[in-house]
């Protein structure tokens, strides 16, 4: 690693994170392409780490850097979406998205609550929302036999199509086929194939988190970028190069090439083109 950052790696915050197994995060930042993550930005990150007060939750403290300024809209965030802008080809192809089931559950509930609270002073409880979602989500083994787009019907019925799926950056990937992002992929392998993190944002227990997968098309007004180390933040599984890096467990099945990955502003519910599959 470059020695101009070595002095920072001995700061308390960095030492704590190193001890917890997050050293790869610093490597990612230091090695990042300085056409996009400049030396000055890297310095700002490490200065932030140096100022750690010793009593805060260290992960939340580190996360707060990437979110600066905290109240700014995404387009005005200082450290996000600084990678290479992707060309307009991206708007003509289907992209894949894997999210935590909890995240989709909360997104749907929030979207419906907005409608229902306004219209009828009502909202849904989490437990009832999960019941409904469990019926809308498709099990992998039923993927081929279910021909209707259940989730699209639901979005249309409840009028939440224009609502944003989540408030903040989304990560998506490009499949082997422009019209079928899951072509050649066993959906159950997606967390491994995409190299997704576990609950501690490391490789550990990456396959123990309930997740869902779906395809979407990004609309023209959404800007799409190649991710940088600052977009990846405090996760140890991400690597440079603009492609996903699969976990070693599925290298034999899918090889090590990886798939093109992207980060972008959030899309709306009606950007989803497939059913939502439980994986």
């Amino acid at each position: 690693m470059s020695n101009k950052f070595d002095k920072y790696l001995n700061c308390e915050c960095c030492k704590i994170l190193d001890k917890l197994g997050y050293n790869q995060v610093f490597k990612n930042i230091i090695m990042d392409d300085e056409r996009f993550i400049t030396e000055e930005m890297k310095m700002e990150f490490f200065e932030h780490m140096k100022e750690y007060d010793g009593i805060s939750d260290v992960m939340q403290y580190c996360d707060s850097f990437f979110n600066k300024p905290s109240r700014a809209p995404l387009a005005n965030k200082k450290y996000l979406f600084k990678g290479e802008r992707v060309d307009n080809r991206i708007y003509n192809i289907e992209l894949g998205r894997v999210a935590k089931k909890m995240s989709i559950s909360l997104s749907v509930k929030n979207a419906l609550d907005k409608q229902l609270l306004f219209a009828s002073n009502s909202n849904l409880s989490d437990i009832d929302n999960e019941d409904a979602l469990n019926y809308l989500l498709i099990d992998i083994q039923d993927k081929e036999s279910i021909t209707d787009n259940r989730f699209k019907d639901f979005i249309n019925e409840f009028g939440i199509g224009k609502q944003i799926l989540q408030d903040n950056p989304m990560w998506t990937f490009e499949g082997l086929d422009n019209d079928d992002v899951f072509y050649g992929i066993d959906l159950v392998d997606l967390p491994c194939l995409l190299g997704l993190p576990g609950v501690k944002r490391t490789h550990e227990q990456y396959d123990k988190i309930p997740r869902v997968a779906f395809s979407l098309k990004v609309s023209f007004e959404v800007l799409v970028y190649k991710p940088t180390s600052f977009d990846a933040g405090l996760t140890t599984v991400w690597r440079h190069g603009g492609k996903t890096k699969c976990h070693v467990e599925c290298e034999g099945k899918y090889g090590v090439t990886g798939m093109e990955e992207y980060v972008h502003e959030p899309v709306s519910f009606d950007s989803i083109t497939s059913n939502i599959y439980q994986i």
Partner: protein
Amino acid sequence: MKGQQIDIKKLISDNKTALTDRDGLKPLFIIAERISRKDNLQLENNVENQILNLDLENLNIEQVNTLLSFVYYSKIDVSNIIPYFKKYITSNAHSSSDLIVLKRGILIRFIIELKVKYFNLKDILAEKNLREKSPWIWIDCMSYYNWSIAEDEISIQISKKQHEFQNLLYRIPAFHRRIDNHLFCESLQTWHANLSKLNKQKLDDWANKFKVKVSDLSLEAISKIDSLPLFQNELMEY
């Protein structure tokens, strides 16, 4: 810049501005995930203490919803939290403010769903303000105690505006889970009979989508058979 402790009040309020992880979870719910693993008692205790020091009076609806979602997904020990919620519910029992009625309602519903026996049928029947101002929250609560009363109230609500009907559609799986199947199917038929043609079709479609097996016939067909004069009915059975 000074660092920050985990600040639950801030995380509940800043839910919109906080960054998500790659899987789409906000920091508040990443913390919920951590607590649900039950391997960090210190974190759980810290968060529990913060919840017990929240001023529920000054939280808006969105913040209360977020708080309850957090408690739900974190599976945090609620043995101290529930009495704290109950205190708010009791001390605001006579308020007629729409906001307070709704806040009380979703807190009552949350406690009932956890199967904590703080309330009974009489308590819910006495919640007249809730029934009037937030009927679907009241229905959710009543559905745990007396389905017949809940069904009647649903019939009243879905005969009103379209969005009231949507409240029912989305609740079908939840009601189906907790009410006896036969009873629920009868309710579907009852509601079906009083709906517009469009809504009848929707109820049928969504009952199918949500895998509620009313019979081998659609609700529409059942309704038509039921409306046949008796002797034709007998012929069909024959």
